[in-house]
């Protein structure tokens, strides 16, 4: 299979403009005859559904929460990047493009990233016009901050609630289209399959989560904006409902899955406090601007109170190993360093299942230097949140932090038009693989979701629709009944096993294995071990899971069971991808490929996007490679020493 990225040739600066001009338009009078399904109401989905509605298409939008306003995007804290250069500090579209390609460790497409950087400025205009209350200066203009080690201040933010405010903006735009009758919203409804007719995506199978009814819907095109798969690790910073089902089911129907092993681990999350832990809470990266990271030099000190460990017995390991970036070292580097010291037996905090997994983030120096008031102005709400969760007061005792899965760069393979390898199936936001390569920069996911939803899909989808006949396929086509029958059968199977283990126990088992074998550091033996074990867990799941209740009612265990069943297949693909990539890049660190602890990329052999094709249950998937070329940003080694 040849993977055609459809990146326009010629100068990158004018590529998107030229591409837009070359695309076909749909006559305004004909638009309402076209139906588009948008699965997901996060930033990407809500923005796409609202905009397509405004343009006059007939949109059906789905989410599994009780209302579109609660999509996981709501939890983003830090901010959103845009190349506005309001601070006059040398930022530009080109610089944002350069930083994103480099930050992605040269595993993203230049063409996509350039377009993303261009569109970033329109997002801010749009959001402000919708009433998104970004932070402002006293003069009434928008404020910015620098984020995640960037040398320019290009991050727009809304206190610690940027995702919430942006999502509410998109939700309001969506609500307006719902009121206008152009978007029909289906909340508490989960998509369980895509329906293909003659190889094209023409609809979906859904389950009404309250009544349990399984039905189908037909459309002229389908867009998945269903978010990321960090919950493969069981414990992550993602909302509890995040899952891989929509993209995985599309994968099984023929959509290629790209770079599944590229996952981002965030260095500053509150460590697990016990075996009952259900999720992990992210603490903003901004804390590292003033906090110093350390662990005891001597493992024997780990159980002591930090107060009793004198300065000379502390190892400020980030400052020691990376003198120029120190506590502000990039996410992947800071995360791995924390793992290393804990693996050495120098982790702190209470032991959970036999191991202390935590490092101190200490504000004592900053408080001494700037005063408690200044620190509380900067981080007051974060400190409060920390205390609420841990019961410890960070003004008096250092915070404890540990890395946690946070974001997934991998996703369904899409071309420049955000179309997957299934014609008519588009993928937007975190669900696709497009723009972040092997590592995402802070404040760039919100940007990508909104760029895809507001400014890319509405054009590229129209171009697709212009080439197909409106309403050509309805749910009376036998493919719909077949797909629904298959979904019903698999739901029935889950319910009929009535074994002795809970769904969560399988999810935890898979998550722990992935975290150990395919988490912050990976190696051949570990990955091979995981690839051997996951099918066994899967087998036991299908023989011994206990899903109480029936399918004809609201059944949260059943919802989770379906998602875990998919994660059990997907987890194996993650490991296979990690095994096949014999290099270290971005969030993917192969222990065999390092120079004294530093990631060693292999551009000669691995400068490609790995796109996997499903080969059938229990069969090894097929790898396809989309070579990456760099005409503008010359690949260099990331060095933060």
């Amino acid at each position, binding site marked *: 299979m040849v993977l055609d990225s459809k990146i326009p040739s010629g100068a990158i600066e004018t590529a998107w403009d030229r591409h837009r001009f070359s695309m076909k338009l749909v006559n305004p009078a004909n638009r309402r005859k076209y139906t588009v399904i948008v699965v997901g109401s996060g930033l990407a989905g809500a923005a796409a559904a609202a905009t397509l509605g405004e343009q006059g298409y007939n949109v059906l939008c789905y989410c599994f929460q009780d209302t579109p306003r*609660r999509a996981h995007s709501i939890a983003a804290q830090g901010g959103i990047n845009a190349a506005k250069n309001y601070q006059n500090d040398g930022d530009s579209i080109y610089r944002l493009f350069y930083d994103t390609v480099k930050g992605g460790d040269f595993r993203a497409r230049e063409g996509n990233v350039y377009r993303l950087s261009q569109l970033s400025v329109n997002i801010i205009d749009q959001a402000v016009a*919708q009433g998104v209350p970004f932070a402002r200066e006293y003069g009434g203009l928008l404020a910015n901050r620098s984020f995640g080690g960037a040398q320019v201040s290009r991050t727009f933010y809304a206190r610690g609630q940027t995702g919430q405010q942006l999502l509410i903006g998109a939700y309001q735009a969506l609500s307006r289209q719902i009121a206008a009758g152009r978007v029909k919203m289906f909340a508490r409804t989960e998509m369980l399959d895509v329906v293909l007719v003659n190889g094209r995506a023409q609809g979906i199978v859904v389950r009404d989560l309250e009544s349990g009814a399984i039905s189908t819907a037909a459309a002229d095109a389908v867009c998945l904006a269903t978010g990321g798969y960090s919950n493969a690790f069981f414990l992550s910073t993602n*909302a509890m409902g995040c899952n891989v089902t929509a993209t995985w089911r599309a994968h099984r129907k023929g959509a290629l899955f790209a770079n599944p092993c590229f996952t981002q681990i965030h260095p500053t999350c509150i460590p697990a406090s016990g075996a009952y832990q259900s999720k992990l809470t992210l603490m903003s990266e901004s804390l590292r601007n003033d906090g110093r990271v350390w662990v005891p030099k001597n493992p024997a000190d780990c159980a002591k109170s930090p107060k009793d460990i004198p300065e000379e017995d502390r190892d400020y390991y980030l400052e020691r190993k990376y003198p120029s970036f120190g506590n502000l070292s990039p996410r992947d580097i800071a995360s791995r360093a924390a793992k290393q010291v804990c693996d050495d037996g120098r982790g702190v905090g209470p032991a959970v299942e036999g191991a202390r997994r935590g490092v101190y983030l200490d504000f004592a120096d900053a408080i001494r230097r700037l005063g408690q008031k200044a620190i509380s102005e900067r981080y007051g709400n974060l400190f409060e949140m920390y205390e609420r969760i841990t019961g410890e007061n960070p003004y008096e005792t250092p915070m404890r932090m540990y890395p946690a899965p946070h974001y997934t760069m991998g996703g369904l393979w899409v071309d420049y038009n955000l179309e997957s390898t299934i014609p008519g199936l588009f993928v937007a936001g975190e669900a696709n693989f497009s723009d972040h390569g092997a590592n995402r920069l802070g404040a760039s996911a919100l940007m990508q979701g909104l760029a895809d939803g507001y400014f890319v899909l509405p054009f590229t989808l129209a171009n697709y629709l212009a080439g197909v006949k409106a309403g050509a396929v309805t749910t009376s086509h036998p493919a719909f009944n077949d797909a629904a029958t298959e979904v019903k059968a698999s739901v029935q199977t889950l319910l009929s096993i009535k074994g002795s283990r809970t769904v969560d126990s399988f999810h935890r088992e898979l998550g722990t294995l992935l975290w150990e074998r395919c988490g912050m550091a990976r190696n051949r033996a570990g990955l091979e071990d995981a690839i051997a074990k996951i099918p066994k867990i899967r087998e036991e799941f299908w023989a011994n899971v206990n899903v109480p209740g029936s399918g004809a009612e609201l059944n949260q265990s059943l919802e989770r069971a379906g998602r875990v069943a998919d994660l059990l297949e997907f987890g194996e693909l993650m490991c296979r991808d990690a095994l096949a990539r014999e290099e270290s890049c971005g969030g993917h660190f192969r222990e065999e490929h390092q120079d004294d602890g530093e990631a060693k990329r292999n551009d000669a052999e691995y400068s490609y996007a790995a796109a996997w094709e499903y080969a059938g249950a229990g069969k090894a998937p097929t790898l396809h490679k989309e070579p990456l070329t760099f005409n503008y940003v010359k690949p260099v080694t990331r060095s933060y020493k």
Partner: protein
Amino acid sequence: MKIVLNIWRQSTRSAKGAFERHELADVTEHMSFLEMLDVLNERLTAQGKEPVAFDHDCREGICGACGFMIDGQAHGPAVRTTVCQLHMRSFKDGDELCLEPFRAAAFPVVRDLMVDRSAFDRIVQAGGFISVNTGSAPEANSTPVGKDAADKAFDAAACIGCGACVASCPNASAMLFTSAKASHLGLLPHGLPERHDRAVRMVSQMDAEGFGHCSQHTECEAVCPKGIKVENIARLNRDYLFASLFHSPREGEADGGG
């Protein structure tokens, strides 16, 4: 520690509900309230019983999915804390707690502790937006917004739509929710042109959904996990009054542009 829970169980919207008693002997203070319910649910499942249904997603106090009454208090005893952020250190060994869904005519019970809050969505659909199509926005810094207005708008925009205000109001009024949205948008220059129209439309929808009237008990402000203030209600009342006296309503349904 030991905790006894009396939990409302109701299998469907129309089924009759009843309290069910559960004892948990091994709760730790570091658990969140919802993690305690997870532990209970794992146990119920292992015993072949149906777990307790409750809404939740982010577990970080921001999505607004979670929420039920603990001993008659929405989200439980901790101030400005959603139930997903409530930790068991707020309770003591031997406590017996009563868990009930939010009660309001406009919030029908879906199952156990879950309610249907889609009425909130319909209030927003009635006018809780600024009519601006994608692509038609002017340069963001072309309209400066005074810091005071920006901050006040933000305070109102912090609402997470959990419904605790409704559940705590003796009249089951949705005025705090509705006024927070109306204030957020009305305080910003971008939302000014539709301010009065918005007030009328949102309040009419609120009434149509069967929410009660506000008689200024201010219980809503006390329980709001995000500290939304009742001054928003006064602002909405003023806008509504002004609109009913001087404003000619826009003809027909809100149009969706484009």
